[in-house]
Structure formats: C-alpha cells, structure tokens
C-alpha cells in the first residue's frame, strides 16, 4: 500500500519537472493483433446451488471508449466433472450460458468446461477442483478520519475500515488459496417526483412516472400510486480481488484481515450499510489469475507503473490457435455479513442529496430489495 501511495505522490512531483522541461505526453501506438480475434471466457462453479453461468465474448479494443461487450452467440458449452457427468449450458441471453441445475458443485470434485463456437473452434478449460474453505468468523469495522487535498483545501474523506477473522479451512496439499470478496450494500433515496424541466424561463414539474406522481385532471401534481424508484439498494464491489497470499496463517486462522473500506457519505449512511464478506477457496491457477488482476489494478495510474504480467487463465484452444483469455474456476464459498449503522458514524451526517432522478441514478443500484437485506 505504502509503495503505491508513494509512487502516486511521486507522480505529482514529476508533473512539475515535466512542465519545467516542456515535457509532453503522447499516445504510443504499438503494432498489436486485433482484439476481436481474442475470445474471453468467464465462468465459475461453486458449492452453492446453481445455476452456474459462463459468459463468452470478444476482447475489447484498447481504443474502445466504453465497455460494450460483443457477445459470442450460439456457442456450444458443456460442463464436465471428474465423475464422468456432463451438462450442457443453454444460452439465456446473448453470450450468457447457464446450466440447468443437473450438476451441483461438490467439494473435492474437479470441473471443467468444453466449448465450441459457431465457427467450429473448440476450447477447453483445465479441470479445477473445489477445495473446502473455512467460515468467516468475525467482521469488524473501525472509523478512520481522512482528508484529501483539493486545490481549494482539504476535504473530508472519512472511511470505515473493515476487518475480519476467518478460519483457513482444511485446504488441499497443505496449500491454502483464499480469496475474500467484499460486497457493500446501502439503501439510497431519491426524489424523482421533484424532477422538473425548464420551459420559456419557467420551471415546470416533470415527475418520473415511476415516482407514482402525476398530474390530475385539474393539473395538480398528486400521488397516484407507490413510488417504485425512490428507494434503491446500491452496491460497492471491490475494485480489486483481495487474496490470502500476503497473510499469515496462525493456528489455521486469519486474523485482522482488512477486506475493504466503506466511504462515509450522506448516501452510504442514509440508512445503514451492509458489509458482506465471502471467503472463497481457489486452486493455484485461479489464485495466480486473481493475483495478476490485483497487481494490475494496484499499479494503475502511476507513472512508474510496474509492468503487469500476462494474464492467461486456464482455457486453451483445442483445434485452433486463436488467442483466448479466460478462467473457469471452481470454488467453495462461505459468507458472512454485518451492518454498520448510521449511528456508528461519530458525527452527524448531512441529509442525503436531493437527487431528482430515479434512484437507479446511483451507481450499481437496483430498486429490487436484496434478499438478505433486513
């Protein structure tokens, strides 16, 4: 952490020198193969009940302005285990292939997928075993005062640091590869009924229909039904995988592992914040894959960014030499969640901002209440 912090600060210094010496930043073009040729496969099987999903798409060009997935449709995808069973995936939406529930992941078994594109190119993943994993035992959070310096002065950027203790589980071959997946969920409120438009210098009310408000015959704005887009649940996903390689195991326990940070804002603590930690077992191959992903995410943005390794995954071509990147991994998952209440914040938080749009305006949000939200 310290290192990347320092190099980030250091980059700032460089900006000074570069300005001084009339430096400049230009795009470099390299002669690289077209991205569309490269297949991307993402999928996993766990000991949770299915269905299990595999997504097949084509790689994104570096020049892409936005992430627009080009799905690979009408592929044949098959799930196989080491007991000789197999099950076909069916395509539920373009590029998304789902199992029917025939096979359920079992600790100790090995699974792999086989797939064939419309063009007849076949690929196969290396078999990956589901290893057992221990339970998440404790989740704690700690307030930390922070500020960031903007041009006009310091700005509060306090957080809750989230720590957990977990049992490392039995592992296999003495090797323990664990990933901790942090998911934050918080309720947000918006005011779509207060939406308005500008017309001829006047503001005219223009509520979103999902707010339940509409104009009555007399032209008055009245509530005609429940608001379906005033309350949402937004998610924070981890920006990079958190892995066990830097952690010491003491008596088969992980202690005080920092798994995430919860930013304190008027939105995240409008009501309360749910922290869920999933402890997942991984094979070495999958673990190396996530390590490289993490390394890449950590190094991003620094002028002295260390080169990221080639992320290969475990899928390789059978009857062709097409480039492919992807991982189909097997995991056992144990989850635990806690709530951080608004009252845990050691000062008064201002009320949530008056957003006059449907609450899905918040990033990664949905108006469907999560099943585990209490």
């Amino acid at each position, binding site marked *: 952490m310290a290192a990347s912090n320092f190099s980030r600060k250091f980059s700032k210094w460089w900006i000074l020198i570069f300005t001084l010496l009339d430096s400049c930043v230009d795009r470099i073009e390299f002669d690289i193969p077209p991205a569309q040729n490269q297949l991307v496969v993402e999928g996993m099987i766990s000991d949770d009940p299915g269905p299990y999903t595999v997504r097949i798409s084509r790689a994104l060009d570096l020049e892409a302005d936005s992430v627009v997935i080009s799905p690979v449709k009408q592929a044949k995808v098959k799930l196989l285990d080491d007991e000789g069973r197999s099950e076909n995936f069916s395509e539920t939406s373009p590029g998304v292939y789902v199992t029917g529930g025939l096979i359920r992941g079992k600790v100790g078994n090995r699974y792999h997928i086989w797939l064939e594109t419309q063009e007849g190119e076949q690929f196969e993943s290396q078999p990956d075993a589901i290893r057992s994993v221990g339970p998440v035992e404790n989740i704690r959070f700690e307030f930390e005062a922070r500020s960031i310096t903007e041009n006009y002065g310091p700005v509060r950027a306090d957080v809750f640091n989230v720590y957990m203790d977990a049992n490392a589980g039995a592992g296999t071959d003495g090797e323990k590869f664990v990933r901790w997946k942090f998911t934050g969920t918080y309720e947000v409120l918006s005011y779509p009924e207060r939406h308005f438009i500008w017309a001829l210098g006047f503001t005219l009310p223009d509520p979103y229909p999902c707010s339940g408000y509409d104009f009555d015959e007399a032209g008055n704005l009245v509530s005609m039904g429940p608001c379906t887009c005033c309350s949402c649940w937004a998610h924070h996903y981890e920006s990079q995988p958190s892995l066990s390689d830097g952690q010491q195991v003491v008596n088969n326990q992980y202690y005080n592992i920092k798994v995430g940070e919860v930013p304190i804002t008027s939105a995240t603590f409008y009501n309360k914040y749910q922290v869920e930690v999933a402890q997942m077992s991984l094979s070495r191959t999958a673990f190396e894959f996530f390590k490289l992903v993490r390394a890449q995410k950590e190094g991003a943005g620094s002028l002295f960014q*260390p080169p990221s390794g080639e992320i290969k995954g475990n899928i390789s071509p059978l009857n062709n030499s097409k480039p492919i990147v992807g991982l189909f991994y097997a995991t056992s998952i144990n989850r635990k969640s806690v709530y951080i209440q608004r009252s845990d914040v050691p000062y008064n938080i201002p009320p949530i901002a008056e957003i006059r749009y449907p609450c899905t305006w918040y990033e990664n949000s949905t108006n469907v209440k999560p099943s585990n939200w209490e």
Partner: protein
Amino acid sequence: MSAVNRSSLLRRVAVFIVVFSSIVARGQDILQHQLDGTEQGKSLAVFFEELEKSSKVRVYFITEWIEPISFQRSYAGMTLEDALSDLMNGTDLSFIAMYPDALVIIKDPTQALLRKRAIEEAVKQNQRVDTYRFGDRGKARKGRLIISGQVTGSRSLDPIPRVNIQVSDTERGTTTDESGKYVLSLEPGVHVLTFSSIEYETKVIDLLAYEDGVIDFIMEESGVMLDEVVIHGNFGREVTTGKVGLTRLSMVEVKRAPALLGEVDLVKQVQTLPGVTTAGEAAAGFNVRGGSVDQNLILYDDMPSFNSSHVLGFFSAFNSEAIKDVSFYKGGVPAEYGGRTSSVLDIRSRDGDFRKWNGNVGIGLATSNFMINGPIKKDTTSVAVSFRTTYSDWLVRSIETEYADLSKSSVSFYDATMKLTHLFNSRTRLSVTGYSSNDAMRLVGDSTYQWNNLQFSAKLSHQFTEKLNSEFVAGVGSYGYSVENPDYLTASKLSFRINTILAKAAFNYPLDRHNLNFGLQMLHYRFSPGTLTPGSPASNAESITLEKQYSIENSLYVGDELTVNDRILIEGGIRLPVFISLGPATVKLYDPQSPLEVSNVSDSLNFGTAQPIETYVGIEPRLSFRWKATESSSIKFGYNRMYQYLNLVTNTTAVTPVDIWLPSGYYIKPQRADQVSIGYFTDLRSGKYAVSVEAFYKALDNIVDFKDGAKLVLNPQIETDLLQGKGTAYGVEMSITKNTGRLTGNVNYTYSRSFRQVAGPTSSESVNSGNQYPSNFDQPHIANLAWKYSLSRRLFFTGNFTYHTGRPVSIPLSAFQFENNTIAYFSGRNQHRIPDYHRLDLALIIEGHKKRKKKGEGSWVISVYNVYGRNNPYTVFFKSSGAGIPQPYQLSIIGSPLPSISYNYRF
C-alpha cells in the same frame, strides 16, 4: 638549438635521404680522399668543417649525430671511406657519397624519418620539446641501455599512473606504473619520447643517450592549455595502452561536450562510449553491455557510491570541477575491482595545487559552482574545495500549471567536495576526502523527497622500497533517502539508508617484466531497508521498521601485468571475495514444498549479533591479453568473472527514489557474471585515425527479477516477491576515432542483445512461462557520433548525436470484462518496444586566452540540447480510457530544443 631550426635542418637532410636512396651513388672521388694524420684528436664535425673549407666538398650531417665521434688515433694513409667505416662501426650511422663532391651522413633512414616526424608534429602542436643527453659516443657501451624515471603532475605533485610513453622511432611504447614510474630499454642513440596522458599536456623528449639515464619530470595539467588539439578520449592510444579493458575519460573533453542545461555531466559522457546506453532520457545511471544500472561499480576516491545523479538522473552527482581523473572498465576488469558485474567507473577527485592558489567559478542556468585549491604550505600541504548548488526554485516557481500552486515548491540540491593532501616526504603522501551531496524536492502540501550521500575517506600512499608501493584507505559512507508526507492526519516519513565502512590495502610491486598488484579490501554494510514513522501526533500512519541487515564483503586479490615482449602483454589475476550476511536477524522459513509466499511461512530462525547467516565465497579469475599484431594494431582478449552481492531491486524501468538496495543473504544468492571479449584495435595514418572492433559475450547467473505485481517498498518478506534467474548478453562494438586535425571526433556503433530467463517451478515463480525474454536494457542498435571542430584555438563547435533502439516494455494488447471489472490483457514481459531514441545536441565553446602565465580565463558554453525537438520517450505509462481500459502513453521529458548558456571563470 631551437626546435624550429633543427626541424628545418632535418628537412634538408631528409630530402637528401629520399633522393639518395633512389639513386645509385656513383661519386666515389670524395671517399678516396687520403687522410694525412692531422685529423688526430679532432672531432668528426670539426674535421668535416675543415674539409669543406679546404675543398669543394659539401658534407651533410647533423652535428649531434656525430658529436661524440672523434679521431682517437691517426688515420694517416687511409681513405676517408675506410676511416669513416671504422669510426661508424657499431653505430646506426652510415654515409653515402653523391656526385664527386657531396658526402651525406645518414642514420638509419627509417629512424630518422620517424624522429623527424615526431619532432615536427610536436612543434606543430605547440608541445614542449625537452632535450636530454646521457653519456657520449666515445664511452658508449654496447647493447641496450635503460632510461627510467618518474612522472608527476605539476600541481598535485602526484605521481601520474598510466602515462603513455611512445618511442617514436621504434613505434614501441610503455606506460607508467601506479606510482608514475617507467622503465625503457633502448638502443644507444637518438630517440624521441612522447609522454601523453589524459588531463595533462603531452611532453616530448628529444633524447640522446649512450648510457643509462634517469628522466624525472613534471607534466602540466591541461587546464592551462597551450595546445590546440586534445585527443578525444583515449581511442587513439588503445593500441599501446597497457590495460586491456580500460577507457580513460578526458575531463577537458567532457566539459566541451554539449550538455543538458549546460551542466557538465560525466555520466552522460560515459553513456556515449561504445556498448554503453541508458534506459531513457535523463534516467539515472547507465547500462553497460546489456547490464542493469546497479551492476556498475562507481568509486569516488575508493568509496562505493550508490547514487550517481542529482534530481533522479538529470544531473551527475559529481561536480566535474572536483574530478581529476576517471577510469572506466567494461571488460577485462583487473582483479583490484570487484563487487559489481558490468563495469567499473573509478573517479578520483582533484588534489589541491601545491604551488599556487587557483580556482574556478561557473554560472549556468540551473546551477553554479565554485572551486578553489591551493597550498596550505607550499610543496607540502594542499587543499581543494568545490561546491555546487542549484537555484532553480525561481524557474519552478515561475511556472504556471494547472496541477498545483507551485509558488511554494522547491527543487534543490548541492554537492561539495573537500580534499586535503599532505606530503610527508617524497615517499609518503596522505589525502583525506570529504564528499557530501543532498537533494530535496517539495511540492506544496505534498511530500518532500530527500536524498543524501555523505562520505569520508583517507588514503595513505607510501613507498616502502624503490619497487614496493602501497596505498591504505579507510573510509565511511552513508547514503539514504526519505519521503516525508506533511499532511497532518496522515503525516509520515519513509526512510532508507545504507552505511558503509571501507578498509583497504593495495600494493604494487614492479619486477622486471612483471607488475604485481595485490591487496585486501574490507567492506561492512549496514542496511536500514525501510522505516515508516508517523510524522505528527494525530497521524494515523503505522509505524513500521524493517529489520536492519548487516553484511561484510572482504576480498583478497592478486594481479600481474606481464610484459612478455614488445608485442605481448598479459594481465592475469584472481580475486577471492567472501560475503557474509550477519545477524542480528530473524529469517522466515517457508514450507519447502511450496513457493516462497507469506502464507507459506513455516518457521523462523533467529541469529544473534554478528552471527553469520549465510556465507558466500567466490573465486574470480581475471585474464586479459594484448598482442600487437603489427606496429599499429593489436588484438586484445579479456575474460573476467565477477560476483555481485548488492542488488538494486526495482520493478520500474527508470530509477525512482524508492528503489531499494538489497544485499545477498539467506534467500538472495549473489549474482555472477562471466564475460569474454575480444577486440581488434588499429591506428591508421600514423595515429590520425583509430579503429576498433570488439565483441563480447556475457553469461549471468542469479540475476534478480521480480514477480508480476511485486511490492518492494516496506516489504519485510521481500524474498517472496523476488525471483532469480539467468541472463545472457552479447554484442559487437565498432568505433572509429579521428584524433588529429581541426575536426576530431568519434563515431561508434554497437549491436548487442541482452536476455533474461527466469524459470521457476510454478508459473508465479517464472517470468513469461520460463521462456527467455529481452531484458529491460536490450537495445540492439546503439550509435553515437561526437565531434569537435576547432574554429580557432579558442573557439570550438562540438556536437553529438545519439541513437538507440527503444527499450522493451510490456503493454496491454486488449481488455476484457471479468466479474464487473475491466481488465487489461498484457503482453508477456518485455515483448514490445517503445519508439527508438535519437537526439542531436550542439554546443559552441568559447575559451579564454591560453597563455600559461596569464591570470584569469573565462569561457562560455552555449549549447542546445535536443536540437530538432524529438519527443523521446522517458517512460511508458497507462491512462485509463473512459471505458476503464488502460491505454499506453509515452512521457517525453524534453520535447523541444533546450538552449542554455553557462560561463566559467578560471583564476
């Protein structure tokens, strides 16, 4: 007799020689002249004069040739021919008659021509010609005679080692040894000796010797130059230099080269030598033959230096005014050097003048420097002090930028050297050097970066006997950096430091054809690999202190330079380094079946104070061989094995302030390099051009590389993020130098490759699946062109052009989505290259009057760096596009021509 007169006489003689040698001499009359006995007791010269007076005969001769010859007895009745034959028997003289009445006395014509040319050349170049006479013809003994002596510098009274001594009439040569001494074995007669050394004015000695003689003399430092032409580097002397792998750098020329912001830079000049390159624009350090920056041993007055630059590579850390002498080895490294695997840059600081006070003041756009030196007690104690500092704050603060308010920012550095030298007597000399350098940079409200280097060393040189010379050095050094974050709530200070203690004894013993060197070196290191301390009471920064690391590196060496004969020189040696990593320390043990990972710690070992943790003993054979194939060409071969115990671990391609020096120890094995090189060196047109071709092959073992995504700063278990592997590098270096004339210069081209291979048992312990990959410094094509055109004796137009292939990088090829994250698909390590690097710099140098006696001399350097404004990449980095896809960008630091002007006043 003045040199000019003599040379015109010589010319007359020479013309005749040429004419006569092509004509069959028919005139016999004069030779039949009968002697009558009156000649007895007269010298031959007197006799010839009388002969000319008494007859029409003309005799052509040079007085000093025949000076010692006289008619010891009566030759009455004999013909002149017989008498002369008798007199000249056993000398290199002979005579020839042409026409009935002309007699020409000739020496061995080849020798005469060579001598004439040497003297003429010396006169043309305003070199001083001194005349020495030993013995006389009459008492000349048979066989060879010995001329020996010692050469010292005029100001420092310091013996000058490795002075090239050319015996012009034989094309033979030698060099002075470490204590400035030389021995020449010559035929009796006339010779012209040319003594030349970088930084000193060439001295020519016109010698007439019939018996052994001693010539001790003083060479003038070329700071007060009279000469018009100074040879660039020592390319022209490669053929005769004693040391096979040595290149000596001329500080005079370094100062005349175009430089960034007008700042004279030794390291940048090293980068223009064949086989040397750099990672990018203004990157710190240099890369030799495909090696990394930390593989260069940089010695400043015997102390190893861990930082060769200011402001991360923009300027050299060594003030050129404080440097006396620079030696650079990239192959055939002698046994006295060790501890790094690529090259040696041995910098000796300047001694104070023992005779009079003088100094120098320099003012440039970014820095100014001041140097003064002189006698504290004349001919006994001298002092030299130099100081250099920057005042670029005003530049920084005047910048308008959108990034930050820079009015309170600062960039500062200084370096200072002080050297005291005391001569106890002609055999004992003590010098004490102190060196300090400091860099500090701050952005408003942001971190302060600070580097500093402090060292002291004392050297006692003592001559035990005529032959046995010795040097004893003791020194301490401390290099470190810190990064301070002033933000009240997160205030912290990160620091790193290496402390070094050095003790060394070196002996030199020349014996006949041998020149023995032997000695002992001891180094003690204390590394503080990282400390993070909270910087304010409210700071939430963790307090982290990594365990200190202690080690000693002791080496014994013995080397010999054996001059087998005029053609063959063999340098051999052996060095025995012992590296011991010492406690106190706690070493983590890992599950032997698994990769080194923090999660695989199984146990730990505790070591007490000074308890050895791991010991590495090395044997380093060194061998070089020079064979003079012809008078003006030689073939050189060098082999050396070297171990390196300290590694600069970095996972960026440029040196950054938070790089870490890591000693070998329980997990990190010492690097080993074996290098062979073979080269052909030749002088064309009697030294006007020097041409060389040299090939090398290097095999490296246990090079340190890092795992993908390694974290190196404040990592208590850094071994879990590092990998060791193999490396190879090979290449051919070609160089042509023009040494004389108004236009001098050098063009060189190098083709070389450098690869690494890290193949561990698992994919995370391998790089690129264990396949060979280009190293960060694999730059196949490197070309340099440097020239100096003398517009007049005081006005020079210099320039250099540099080209090298862009270095390899790892880049994203595409991107993909995985679990809601956009992830870049990177190429394997170093599979692509950044654009090629090329740059042209020009400078105009106006130097002051070059009168030896004149007080005060100013010189101007007006230069333009990057004349055609090439955007050379400094580093490649990735900026996320709107879609979160990292896109490669290049950062060019100096994207436009950068003019500068600096002024130097020498007094």
